[in-house]
């Protein structure tokens, strides 16, 4: 038996190797205590399936997304141009990431700055692996037959029109997928986009994540599935606020797949 491998681009390059795909971890994936489990789950899946991948490791920096959305174009471009230099240096062709904000920025905004890659979100990547039969689900896992609702993240859904891939991944788990009243193109934001994650909300009647959590709980789902680190935080906080954390869990798609695979 061997252990899981997490090769870096630098290690691979020094061995004269190039991976098929760069796994862009993102800041939440690297530092957020809760969300690190998602990164680890995804890496385990990649190992298990035998995908040729690598990460940038310490060479990765923020894509610059929150700086750009908060108006600081200089800072965004400083981050972006530096990242593009690193990725182009390794001749990266394909990028997969679990963060819809990183996904959107690298896919749509790096080309204007000289970074052209095929970028896919981990929900799309997982869907491909399932469709190709590379991820074999046991189907009898802890999610079987359970009611699960999927919260669309804005930067995956409306921003990039990815609605079906995460749903296909969830359905593959042999669960009952229940939709919230506002879903897909009408999905309600968790409240964290546009750099809101990094400041207190403006004065109002309610926090957005509470509004969204109430809607998710109203479906009667036993778990809320998300595909975004910010949504994971916001929905988890929302469920805690409603004191329902004992019965209703919030999971990222990769965690659900990894659990079902028994890894």
């Amino acid at each position, binding site marked *: 038996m061997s252990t899981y491998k997490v090769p870096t681009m630098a290690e691979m390059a020094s061995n004269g190797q190039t991976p098929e795909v760069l796994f862009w971890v993102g800041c939440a994936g690297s530092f957020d205590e809760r969300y690190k489990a998602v990164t680890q789950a995804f890496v385990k899946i990649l190992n298990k399936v035998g995908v040729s991948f690598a990460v940038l490791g310490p060479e990765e920096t923020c894509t610059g997304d929150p700086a750009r959305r908060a108006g*600081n174009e200089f800072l965004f471009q400083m981050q972006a141009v530096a990242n593009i230099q690193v990725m182009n240096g390794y001749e990266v062709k394909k990028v997969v990431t679990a963060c819809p904000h990183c996904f959107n920025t690298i896919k749509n905004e790096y080309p204007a700055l000289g970074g052209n890659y095929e970028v896919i979100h981990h929900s799309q990547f997982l869907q491909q692996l399932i469709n190709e039969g590379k991820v074999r689900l046991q189907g009898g896992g802890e999610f079987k037959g359970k009611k699960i609702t999927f919260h669309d993240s804005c930067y995956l859904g409306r921003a990039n029109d990815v609605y079906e891939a995460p749903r296909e991944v969830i359905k593959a788990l042999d669960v009952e997928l229940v939709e919230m009243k506002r879903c897909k193109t009408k999905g309600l934001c968790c409240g964290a986009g546009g750099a809101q994650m990094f*400041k207190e909300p403006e004065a109002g009647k309610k926090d957005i994540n509470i509004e969204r959590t109430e809607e998710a709980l109203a479906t009667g789902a036993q778990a809320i599935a998300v595909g975004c680190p910010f949504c994971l935080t916001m929905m988890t906080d929302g469920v805690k606020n409603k004191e329902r954390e004992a019965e209703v869990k919030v999971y990222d798609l990769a965690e659900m797949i990894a659990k079902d695979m028994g890894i």
Partner: protein
Amino acid sequence: MSILPQLAFLLILGAAGYILSKRIQFLRRNILLGKAETRNDQSENRWKTMLLVAFGQQKMFSRMIPAFLHLLIYVGFLVINLEVLEFVLDGILGTHRLFAPILGGAYTAAINMFEFLAVAVLVSCVAFLIRRNVMKVERFTKPELKGWPALDANLILVIEIILMFAILTMNATDQILAARGDEHYLALGTLFFSSFLQPLFEGFSYGALVAIERFAWWFHIVGILAFAIYVTYSKHLHIFLAFPNTWYSNLKPKGEMQNMPEVTNEVNMMLGIPVENPAEPPAEIGRFGAKDINDLSWINVLNAYSCTECGRCTSECPANLTGKKLSPRKIMMDVRDRAEEVGKSIDTGGPGLADGKSLLGDYITKEEINACTSCNACVEACPVNIDPLSIILQLRRYVAMEESGTPAQWNAMFQNMETSFSPWKFSPSDRFNWAEKVKEEEMK
């Protein structure tokens, strides 16, 4: 017959045409107060978008009831305007129902269809008045609609109801006169809807009927011309601008923010990257981001003039839903109001843009733009593809780069990113620590 009515008609038509052309010039100039931007690519896609979204009303149908009522008014507007052609020709030539003898039975069928649509428009307008004033549908009761916008909406509906009544009254009296054997009035056979109005006028004298018929005719055509001018002052401008507005839609992924190439050169120089094609220095040094309407693109201003204040954007905005001050509809109304203010000032020899006011500050506050989650719900909701988010993000750029006025927590986030390359304050050397645990785990 005297030639006087023809002269009067021509005079009114000419005057309306003149005023309208002046108004169009005013609007065009105001829209072009915005910065130049070329968005002519993918013309096939653009025509398709316009056909589906504006002509085909595709996005209206995410809400079925208002979509259906609106469709009736829209089809009524398109089709009844065919009859206006006859009105205009009759007015110029001094004829009465010019096309009736030419088209015969088809003419009666057409008039019946116009009458049906007139009734449908009438009913829809009444329903819309009820939705606004009795049911008080939430999106029509938001603070930005207080005053003129609410009055404007009601005026449009009332004017349309009166115009439709004029058509029906004209047809009813016209056919009573025809039935009485007046040569000037042609019996058209049954006109289904207006026949219900006939009992109201049966006992009237010949003179009174002619007076009512003529009054209704004049009222309808002059009303339509006056309404066309009114529209240029009103939110109702969407009936025309929805078409160019959807043609100039943003066809890129909604999540993509427009790049600022003027920043890229500087960034490249700071990072020691050779600048391959140093862009020509811009003729006038613009601002970073937008403070006023002239910093926005002309397409942003066109968006504002195309907005009919339906509020679907605001009703889907997560910030607005949870009681924050941000309302995407208000952003669009503010842009239009500011463009109007600057335009009027220029036309009266005033200071125009240099009036000491600006879009950001005097119309839109930082509190509003800071509340945006950039979720694109407003963009998705707009039935005519208006993009309030683009304006909000340009205003944020101004605040961050020209004023350094972003909220303190964002400034802290900027600092973290500058020093630790992450929005959170973690040491960059810890970035890869997450892998240690998994690398020790036995692969199952």
